[in-house]
């Protein structure tokens, strides 16, 4: 730091001292000059007055000898270089000296004397209240200013030396003072700041003064203490967080491992389910075929009970086949990637209605036009087929009515399938979406409990949601949502994983 605060303060004080000293110096010189001039003037006037008084009588009696003595006596006085005395007729009675000097001051005074009125002679005895004066002569005195100038010059020199001495002394004192009071404590403070900035939080600024800098240093030391404490706390926190991060990382690793394990298990399970179902399907079909053969080939040999038992085998085989198909489809969802395409749901719905051929007492009403979305047509057919089939299957009214509708809600299409069937109690709202869960015996409607779980899985595959609103006896409404925009499908990732 080339020009620090102490130097600035010193400079400011020095400028002030210089200005003050210069002002005072000028003032003292002027004062000295005025004083000397006044003294000179007073002395000159005193001398002049003294001479006026002294020459009054010699002038009246025109005593030239006395005037000579008085005039020469005055010329002996310091600075008087010329004296001239004239009488009332302006005749010069005394004149001595020279007035040719460069710096001179001239003084003049008339000489008065008391006048006596000749006509009132008793005044000489009685006195008079009226005292008149008359001019009886004139005095000219010329004073040399050389002595005054010399004195003034001497005074100027003295004051100049004093001013310069004062400035130098003030400079030294101010320098010492600022160094002692300002510079040293600030340097100590700066040194401390530098050390602390370098990381040495144990350093304490060694300042013992009680002034503002002392308070600042104390505050600084206190701040450093707080900072150190904060850094320690922070270090502890960092260590703890590091430890937590390590733990979290480990947990993540474990979780990933678990997820991988689960995925693998899931894949294995799906593979197993698919393979098991696929493998079961062939012998089951063989059982069914054999049972049909038995009916065909031995229909005459079986009695009624035998026929019923063989029919039961055939129907059970068909149900198991149907169950296996459902499991296969369920396992397909998410396992095998389906190609996405623009699917007009209106055509999908028409096709589904056509396929399921609803009975005459059930009317399917499409309330409004359905949108076209990016999805797998196969899964959309499955969704509508399951919902409509369930509605028809459980319809208990002589005139059944199923309404299909769609509305927009934020970024989703909200579809609804509403029927006027028997309705479902609220306690079963969750249960119906779980696999192999049916609300009636399987013999009553041949349901396998896979329709709604499959529907749910498909909807969730497309980031949608499915739920039910129903009251017993009032019918049921199934709602499901599908995103309006195209979204990355979950099964893409899953499919990719499988592909790998």
């Amino acid at each position, binding site marked *: 730091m080339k020009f620090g605060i102490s130097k600035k303060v010193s400079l400011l004080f020095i400028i002030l001292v210089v200005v003050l000293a210069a002002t005072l110096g000028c003032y003292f010189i002027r004062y000295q000059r005025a004083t000397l001039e006044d003294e000179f003037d007073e002395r000159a006037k005193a001398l002049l007055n003294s001479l006026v008084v002294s020459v*009054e*009588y010699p002038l*009246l*009696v*025109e*005593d030239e000898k006395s005037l000579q003595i008085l005039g020469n006596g005055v010329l002996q006085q310091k600075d008087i270089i010329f004296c001239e005395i004239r009488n009332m007729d302006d005749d010069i009675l005394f004149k001595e000296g020279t007035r040719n000097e460069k710096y001179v001051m001239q003084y003049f005074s008339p000489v008065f*004397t*008391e*006048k*006596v009125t*000749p*006509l*009132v*002679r*008793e005044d*000489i*005895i*009685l*006195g*008079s*209240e*009226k005292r008149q004066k008359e001019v009886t002569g004139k005095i000219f005195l010329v004073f040399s200013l050389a002595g005054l100038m010399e004195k003034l010059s001497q005074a100027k020199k003295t004051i100049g030396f004093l001013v310069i001495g004062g400035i130098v002394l003030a400079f030294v004192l101010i320098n010492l003072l600022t160094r002692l009071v300002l510079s040293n404590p600030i340097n100590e403070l700066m040194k401390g700041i530098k050390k602390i900035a370098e990381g040495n939080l144990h350093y304490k600024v060694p300042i013992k003064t009680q002034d503002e800098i002392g308070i600042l240093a104390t505050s600084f030391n206190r701040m450093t203490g707080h900072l150190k404490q904060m850094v320690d706390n922070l270090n502890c926190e960092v260590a703890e967080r590091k430890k937590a991060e390590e733990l979290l990382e480990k947990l993540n690793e474990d979780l990933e491992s678990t997820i991988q394990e689960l995925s693998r298990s899931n894949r294995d399970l799906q593979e197993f389910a698919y393979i098991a179902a696929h493998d079961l399907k062939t012998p089951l079909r063989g059982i069914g075929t054999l049972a049909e053969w038995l009916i065909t080939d031995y229909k005459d040999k079986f009695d009624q009970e035998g026929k019923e038992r063989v029919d039961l085998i055939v129907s059970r085989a068909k149900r198991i086949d149907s169950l296996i198909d459902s499991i296969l489809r369920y396992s397909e969802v998410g396992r095998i990637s389906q190609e996405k395409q623009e699917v007009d749901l209106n055509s999908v719905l028409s096709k589904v209605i056509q396929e399921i051929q609803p009975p005459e007492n059930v009317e399917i009403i499409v309330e409004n036009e359905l949108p076209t979305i990016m999805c797998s047509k196969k899964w959309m057919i499955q969704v509508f087929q399951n919902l409509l089939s369930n509605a028809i299957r459980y319809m208990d009214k002589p005139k059944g009515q199923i309404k299909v509708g769609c509305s927009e809600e934020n970024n989703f299409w909200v579809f609804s399938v509403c029927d006027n069937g028997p309705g479902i109690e609220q306690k079963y709202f969750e249960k119906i979406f779980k696999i192999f869960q049916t609300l009636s015996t399987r013999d009553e409607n041949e349901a396998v409990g896979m329709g709604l779980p499959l529907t749910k899985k498909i909807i969730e595959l497309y980031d949608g949601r499915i739920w039910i609103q129903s009251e017993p006896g009032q019918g049921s409404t199934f709602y499901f949502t599908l995103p309006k925009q195209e979204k990355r499908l979950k099964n893409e990732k899953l499919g990719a994983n499988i592909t790998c």
Partner: protein
Amino acid sequence: MSGIRKILFIAKFGFTPLERNLFLGSAPLKRGLLTGFIFFWIFSDGLCFAVPPELAKPIKRAAVIFSSNIEPYQQSLKGFEEFFREQKESLHVYKYNLEKESAGAVYLQIEKEKSDIVLALGTKALRLAKEKLKNMPVVFSMVLNPEAITDLNISGVSLDIPPEIKLKNLKSIFPDAKKIGLIYSPQSELLYNDISRACTDLGFQLVSKKINSKKEFPDVLKDISWQIDWFMMTPDTDIYFPKLVEHLLRASLENKFPVIGLSSTYVRAGALISFDCDYEDLGRQAAELAMERLGEEKQVNTQLVRPRKVKISLNLLTAEILGIKIPPENIEQASQVFGK
């Protein structure tokens, strides 16, 4: 209200204005007491305030003309008035000051008031009286060398103390005094003659010198100062002026000769002794002359009188410096003593 006027009032109204109110508003007993009181008051008043004798004489009207407003003139007037009072004469004084009023205005007023007598105090007043008031009796006082200003209708007292009186007094106090120094000019030549005569009569030796200009005074004084015991000042305005008096008094102390001053003012300034007039007595003298004038039916000749009383002033400090001893009885008798 005088007793006579009260009697006249009661003769007309039966009671005084004050008692009238009291009387009318009181009961019979009270009224009787008041009547008694009124009679007692009338008679007692008549006894206490008898008619003064001067009321029987006509009041004199005097016009007093002051030359200036100095104290000695007032003292002289005081003596003038006192004398009239002592003579049981009623005097009414009209004062005029020539420092404040013009001579013409004063003259017109005096003419208008028809004064019985005019008192002129000082030369200036006397000149006015001589020039303007020729038909009126005039007395003067406090005038130095009045001889040239008098007239038939004018009488008065001079301010000049006769030299013989001064010298007699001097001799009585300082019997060792022999040589008297004197410097005079043509203006004071008559006085010089008187002094010279008095010195001869009283055994003094006069060392004198005549000068024609005040410029000669220092040298002449230097010449005579070593020959004299005393120096006598004269009322000569051609010689004496303040600065010269100062020089004279300084020279007297340096050359050890005492100065006889013209008045106590000079003694206070450094002269050893002075013989002053008694200004009140001058007024009395003037009053005496005025009484004479007023009592006469026809004009008389001019009467000029000189002061009859002399007051002595002494300066003890000057005496001490000069080494002169003054007898204590003279100090006690002196009217003014300076430098105690």
